[in-house]
Every structure is written in C-alpha cells, then in structure tokens.
C-alpha cells in the first residue's frame, strides 16, 4: 500500500492537493468526506425540523378540524394562498403536508442523516481510510441530494402546491390530480435516488477497498457492517423505484398508461387515455424499494447503538458474529417481503403465504440483534451519559415498534389494522423514538470528534427525558386509536366517522369512532407541542457547544477502541498521518490483565503489554 502511494504521487488526483483551498472549495464544493458528512448532517437536520413542523400543523388540524392554525395560520395563507384560506388547513393542504412529511422524513432527513452524514463522517475513519474511494462522486451525491431537496421544497409554492398522493404516490391518484406537485415530486425523487445510488456505490467500494492493513472483515466495527448492508439495500432496491418513477412521470407528462387500466373514468367519463396498464405494478415497484428502505432507516441506527453501548458498558458487544450475520440476513430477506404492505390488494393464498412467511422470518434476526444488545449489558460497568441514555431508550422503543410489526405481518390481522393509526404508531416507534434517538446519540457521541468540544451534559439530559416522555405521549395513543379502527390520512382526524358526528346528523351506527378515541387527539397535539419545545435545548446546545463547549482533553474523550478516535481532533484532510495498522477486533474493552480498560484497534500487542 505504501508502495502504491509512493510510486504515484498526486497522480491526477486533484483531491490530493489540499494546501490552500478557498472558502468555496473547502466548505461548499468540498470532496473531503468529513466536510461532506457535516454538510449532509446539517441539511438533513434542517429537513428533519421542517418535516416535524409540517406534522405539528397537521396535528392541529386533526385535533381541531376547520379551525385556523394558531401562530402560523396567517403566514400559510400569505404564502400558499387559497389552500390555507383564513389560516385553515384545507384537505388538499393536509394531503400535501402528509405526503411531504413522509417524503421529507424518509428521503430528505433520516436517510441523509443516518447514511449520508454519519456514514460519510465515520466509516472512512473507522476503517482507517484517507477518504472515500471516489471523493468527487461523493460530492456529486451530496449535490444531487440538495437539488432533490430544493425541488421538493419549491414544490410547496407552485400553483396547486406539493404532491398530495401520500409518500407512497399510488397511481392512479398520483397522476389524476391535475396540479404539478406530483411532477415535482417525481423529478425530485429521481435526483434523490441518483444521490443515494452514487452514495451506495461509494460506500461499498470504500469498505471493500480502503480498509487499513489488518482490518479484516470480522474486525470491522458493527457500524461499518450496518452501513455496508445499507449500501447494498440502496444500490439494488432503489433502481426499480427509479424505473417506476420514470414511468409515472411518463404517465403524468406524456399521457402514457403504465399504471392506468383500461376503462378508467375521470369525473364520471371515460378518460382519454390508451389504458392497458396496471395500478398494482406501481405498488409492487414502490414497495420493492419501500421495504428495504425501512431497513435503511434502522440499520445505521443499530450500528450507532452498538458502538455507543460497547463503549459505555466498557465491555465487548456480546455475539459480534451473530450481529453481523443477522444484519446480512436482514439485508437479504428485506428484498423478498415487500408485498406485506399489499395484503389487501386482492392477494391470493399462495402469494400471501409466501410473504407472510418471509415477514415472520425477517423478524428473527431483529430479535437476535436486540438480544445481543441486551445481553451485552450483563456484566458491564454502565456509564449513563447522554449518548448512552438515548441508546438505552432505543432498545425498548424499537422493541415496541418491532413487536407491533408482527400483527401487521399476518395477512388476517392486517385486515383489521391495515391503513389505520396502528400502522402509523408501529413505524413511528421504530423511526422516531427508535432511529431518531439513535441519531441523537450519534450526534452527542461523535460531536467531540467533529469539533473538539463536548456538548452540554445537563441540557442533553433535559433533551433526553423530554423527548422520551413526549414521544410516547404522541405515539402510544395511536395504537389504541388504530385498533379501534381509526383510519390514517384523514384530513379531519376521523371526525366524519365519529359516533358523535353521526348522532348529530341523526344517524345511529354500530362501531363508529368513540369520543374517547377522538379526545386522544388533543393529548397527542400537546405531546407534539412539548416534544417540539424540548428540542430547543438541543438545537441551542449544538450551536453553542461548537464555540463554547467544554474542550476535550484528549483525542479520545470516551476512551473508545475504534480507529476514528485514534486520529487528531478534528481529523485533518487525509485523516491519518500514516496508514494505521489494525491488530485486533473492534471492542476490546476490559481485557483481563490489561492496565487500562480499553485497547485501541491499532495498538500493537507489544504496546499493550508495556502499559
């Protein structure tokens, strides 16, 4: 390796000339994986906040349908016009916000944060590489992401507003809405998909090719494994959605009928199209991505949790190999479970049997991963710092989310729960108190490496306890609502189906939504408001600590073993002065007979005995 670098000094690699770079080269058009990682991170956090903001307005509308939104209602009317007349959210606007909340959270917030930001910043450091394998591709990936984000954002302000067909964009609804929101959505998605594909190629190639000497596959930190599998999910699951996106775009702008059947009527009359397409095809292609995508959301989170738990229990992760094999297994299986989102599309017995079976099988590796984390606690010396608190909370929260996936996985029980708030609660438990908590943990954990300063611990705790409590206030009631039959994507929060409403109209029905369920909306609204308030200390903490946080006294403030902590803080361009050599596994904590309670991966055996 040394030989290579010496015979080809700076051979055509512009990235290698890192002497004087202007502001633009250094911060905006950077090819340094760490800068790109931070760019990804900040952009994604802004989108995360924006996605949450959309949802706060929706929760108001759900709790108080038809009433003007306080504080921001007038602003909405000013910028969006009639869809928010008098500051009231119209059903069109509700549908736009819902679709964009899902899209933004998944494709513009969590994936870029978990994969783009943490993956970019941490993976090359953890494997002892100078940068990503293709730095310029890396930059292009970020730029495509930003472009996609801008297109999505701009779509709010075009006439008719943003896409309204849910994040799933089912045809024919998606193409039947005459405004251009869906076109923007599709073009934006094509950019985001391109970004993810470029990122995935880069990550996988980097992990395969740029591991430092001695960094064998079974010495990789689990976080790297998680990103590796995630990369493959993106690489192979996204293209079919890209194909589907192109086809839906054709349906929308070129008048084709890929997803439109013969005999489709619009406003009563037969539509002027050739027909012959299939609405179900879109669903298959969407969920072929959609399901792997949810593991894209969770695997990096599990990777972070693993790093932090090992570090703060001061002992090796129990069952490292089972973790790795489980992650690979999840990755493989996630490609063949997608139709569990489609049980009620008229699926016959044989196909349903196949997908129910694979869905049950895929829950087993998740159980194994969680079990490994639990067992790792046993015998540890547990430090309850902020990152660790978030990771510990991740476990039961993901547990709730994951377990409630099981009744959805059986077609017959899904019959009752499909498209109700039970599904909403299920997946928010995995992505919100699950993934978001893990990402918070990652921010608190790697912040000192990125900036050389610690985040404030007290406000970290306030952020943690507040988030934990209010996340549960928001999402726990949704299980009950869903079980009682409350349907999702209701612009009035189900008021039209409530017993009370019907009684007012003089209709007596069996099984309408009870007052009790409807009243929970108020509680959820307040939960969301307080959830937002407790994010304020976090946001301030992040920016304040960059300048004023407690300075770290060493490059390795958490006494961690993995390679990212063996670099200067923050790591310079090129990361390591010399290629590190790896001598041991990733989590050598509290090794018997060793003086300190951790041994870095690059420490030689001789060095360790000298202690």
């Amino acid at each position: 390796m040394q030989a290579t670098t010496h015979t080809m000094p700076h051979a055509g690699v512009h990235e290698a000339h890192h002497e004087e770079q202007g502001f633009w080269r250094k911060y905006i058009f950077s090819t340094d994986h760490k800068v790109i990682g931070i760019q990804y991170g900040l952009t994604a956090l802004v989108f995360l906040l924006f996605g949450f903001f959309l949802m706060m307005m929706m929760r108001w509308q759900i709790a108080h349908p038809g009433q003007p939104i306080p504080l921001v209602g007038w602003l909405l009317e000013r910028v969006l016009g009639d869809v928010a007349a008098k500051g009231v959210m119209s059903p069109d606007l509700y549908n736009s916000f819902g679709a964009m909340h899902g899209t933004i959270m998944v494709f513009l917030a969590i994936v870029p944060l978990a994969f783009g930001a943490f993956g970019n910043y941490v993976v090359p450091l953890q494997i002892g590489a100078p940068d990503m394998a293709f730095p310029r591709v890396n930059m292009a990936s970020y730029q495509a992401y930003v472009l996609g984000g801008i297109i999505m954002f701009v779509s709010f302000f075009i006439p008719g507003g943003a896409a309204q067909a849910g994040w799933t964009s089912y045809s024919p609804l998606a193409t039947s809405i005459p405004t251009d929101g869906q076109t923007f959505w599709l073009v934006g998605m094509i950019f985001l998909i391109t970004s993810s594909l470029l990122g995935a190629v880069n990550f996988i190639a980097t992990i395969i090719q740029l591991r430092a000497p001695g960094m064998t596959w079974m010495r990789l930190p689990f976080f790297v494994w998680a990103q590796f599998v995630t990369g493959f999910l993106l690489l192979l699951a996204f293209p079919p959605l890209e194909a589907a996106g192109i086809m839906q775009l054709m349906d929308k702008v070129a008048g084709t009928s890929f997803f439109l059947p013969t005999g489709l009527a619009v406003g009563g009359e037969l539509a002027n199209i050739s027909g012959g397409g299939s609405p179900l095809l879109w669903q298959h292609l969407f969920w072929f991505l959609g399901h792997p995508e949810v593991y894209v959301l969770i695997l990096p989170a599990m990777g972070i949790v693993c790093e932090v738990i090992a570090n703060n229990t001061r002992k090796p992760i129990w069952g490292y190999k089972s973790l790795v094999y489980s992650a690979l297994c999840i990755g493989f299986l996630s490609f063949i479970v997608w139709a569990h989102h489609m049980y009620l599309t008229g699926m016959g017995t044989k196909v349903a049997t196949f997908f129910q079976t694979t869905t049950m099988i895929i829950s087993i590796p998740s159980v194994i991963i969680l079990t490994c984390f639990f067992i790792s606690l046993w015998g540890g010396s547990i430090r309850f710092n902020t990152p660790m608190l978030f990771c510990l909370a991740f476990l039961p929260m993901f547990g709730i989310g994951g377990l409630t996936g099981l009744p959805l996985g059986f077609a017959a029980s899904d019959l009752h729960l499909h498209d109700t708030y039970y599904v909403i609660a299920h997946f928010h438990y995995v992505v919100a108190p699950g993934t978001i908590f893990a990402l918070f943990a990652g921010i608190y954990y790697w912040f000192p490496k990125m900036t050389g300063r610690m985040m404030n611990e007290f406000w970290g705790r306030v952020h943690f306890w507040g988030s934990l409590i209010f996340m549960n206030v928001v999402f726990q009631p949704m299980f009950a609502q869903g079980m009682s039959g409350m349907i999702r994507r209701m612009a009035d929060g189900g008021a039209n189906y409530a017993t009370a409403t019907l009684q007012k109209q003089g209709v007596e029905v069996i099984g309408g939504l009870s007052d009790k369920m409807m009243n929970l909306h108020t509680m959820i609204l307040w939960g969301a408001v307080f959830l937002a308030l407790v994010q304020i200390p976090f946001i301030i903490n992040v920016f304040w600590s960059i300048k004023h946080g407690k300075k770290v006294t060493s490059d390795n403030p958490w006494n961690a073993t993995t390679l990212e902590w063996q670099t200067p803080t923050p790591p310079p361009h090129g990361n390591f002065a010399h290629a590190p050599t790896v001598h041991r596994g990733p989590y050598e904590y509290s090794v018997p007979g060793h003086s300190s309670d951790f041994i870095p991966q690059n420490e030689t055996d001789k060095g360790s005995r000298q202690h």
Partner: protein
Amino acid sequence: MSDHTDDISKHVRGYMIVGGTLLIGTILTVLASYVDLGHEWNIVLALIIATAKASLVALFFMHLISERQMIYVVLAFTAFFLVGLMFLTIGAYADFPPLTTTR
C-alpha cells in the same frame, strides 16, 4: 485481468471471434423471427439467442470469465433479487388477472 502484453495480443484474436459470433447471432435472431414456430416458441428461441449473445459479451468483453470472486457474489445477489422481483410480481397477478370484460 491479464497484465502481460503478449497475453493481450492473444486476446485480441478472441475479441474478433466473439465480435463475429455476435454479428452472426444477430442475423440468426432476425432469420429465426421469420420462421413461424408458433408465437411462444419464437419468443423462447429469440430469448435463447439473446441470452447466448449477452453471455458472450459479459464473459469475454467484460472479462467476467476471469473476474474476481467478489464481483461474482455481487452479481449473483443482483440476479437473485431481479428474479425475485420479476417472478413474485408477475406471480401476484396470477390470482386476479386484470379486468376488462366480465359478468
């Protein structure tokens, strides 16, 4: 991955032969389409020839025949998922063929 110059010049002949075979394959495909074997069998034959041609390109032009194991692994998974996508999707239609005319 052959690194020696003389090795390469031997390959060059191979490339020419493969190229010629591909051209012949193309002509065969066209001719075969004019022979009426029954619609299904025409499709099968055309796909067989196409697959053979594609394999030649992949094996020789793209050097898959002497590629590293890792690339095989990646491609094997890709092929598997693609087959899964095709068969499961198409399989799901078998239960309820699309409706145009019914009672």
